């Protein structure tokens, strides 16, 4: 929904910081277990070393996110924070930047999949309130919505496939 930009107060700053830190802590532990689960059967896992190696990467991700969130809230105009966050991420890691190697190396210790799990746990809880609304939708509505999602996804994949083939990339 078209959200009016929230006013930046010390409350918002604190909120961004806390949400990111709580998510990062859950992510840190999740990432350790993810590494353990991925290496299951492949010998012992050095939990302490993994822990120490994960911290800088997570702090970098938190820092980028925090700056992007603040920019999204502070800069007038319709640019949402996820665009700022992506742009900062690209700028810091693009080959040739002095930060590139360090940023890529330290964040490579954080599995992409492990950054998703905490968010989706919260998403599940927040979906709970939509459940009552969902039950009211008949099977036709659900079916058509499913087809719409399928069509969007598939349509995009087909066009990408054709253009990538023409370009000779695949």
């Amino acid at each position, binding site marked *: 929904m078209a959200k009016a930009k929230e006013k930046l107060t010390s409350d918002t700053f604190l*909120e961004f910081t806390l949400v990111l830190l709580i998510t990062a802590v859950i992510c840190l532990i999740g990432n350790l277990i993810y590494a353990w689960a991925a290496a299951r059967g492949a010998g012992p896992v050095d939990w302490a070393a993994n822990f120490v190696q994960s911290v800088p990467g997570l702090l970098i991700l938190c820092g980028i996110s925090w700056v992007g969130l603040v920019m999204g809230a502070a800069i007038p105009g319709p640019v949402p924070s996820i665009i700022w966050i992506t742009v900062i991420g690209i700028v810091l890691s693009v080959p040739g930047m002095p930060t590139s190697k360090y940023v890529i190396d330290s964040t490579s210790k954080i599995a992409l999949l492990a950054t998703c799990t905490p968010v989706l746990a919260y998403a599940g809880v*927040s979906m709970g309130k939509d459940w009552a609304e969902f039950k009211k939708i008949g099977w036709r*509505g659900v079916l058509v919505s499913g087809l719409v999602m399928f069509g969007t996804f598939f349509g995009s994949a087909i066009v990408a496939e054709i253009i990538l083939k023409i370009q000779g990339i695949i």
Partner: protein
Amino acid sequence: MEKFKNTKELLSNWPLHITCFVIVIICECIGIIKIPVGNSSIMLLPMLFAMVIGMIVYISKPFTWINSKCDKTSSKFVVIGVSLLIAKMGITSGASIQSVIKAGPALIFQEFGNLGTIFFALPIALLFGFKRESIGLTYSIAREPNVAVIANEYTLDSPEGRGVMITYTVGTLIGTIFVGLLASILAMTPLHPYAIAMACGVGSGSMMAASSGTLIALFPNMADQISAYAATSNILSNIDGVVMAVVISIPLTNFLYKHWEPIIGKRKKNKSENN
């Protein structure tokens, strides 16, 4: 206004955070479940288990501390928490910037592939007896910006508004799992993982996480490319979403509706689905 209202609410919801923490630990311990199908696999990711358990915890009775008081905080965590994933994907895009630029034309044109869904889903919606609802239902994948556009043009109380809210609600509840499975299924077709990766960016952050995560689990040696293409495609959708809706998709859906409704919807009585 009370000082530090949001922060206080966030901290007072500590049982929610502990619960999500425990959910994540359980789900990561389970790990990725692979169901082999033919020469490929359906991948069930820990994040999908986490989402389902989160919802069960909210709906079911024994977990009394997870209730409507958590609504605001949990949605804040979705919006803000997804930043970590976006930052991670931004970094991968930067590291693979050359392949992203090289694939620029494909990334841009696949945005128009999203329109294909209108030709495909609108006739079926009409066949089911939807009238003006079908405009909102089928014009897009109905994430927040798309809902906002419909709200602007028609209001959410209109038939078009009811339609878009159906796709929005269904997408919110089952969309993430749906596209996660869809990525596994499309990976069994001759489509190249790169092309599927670009399709992963069409919806919300959670949808992108589930679908690109599935692809990465299936093709670990292409992980960087997949995540870079998915992230760029998602950013493009965010940039062009509203403009595309206003300039192309809504007028196109209206145009097709005008021509197809008299043919397909002829014998059907107006049936409102959302009763």
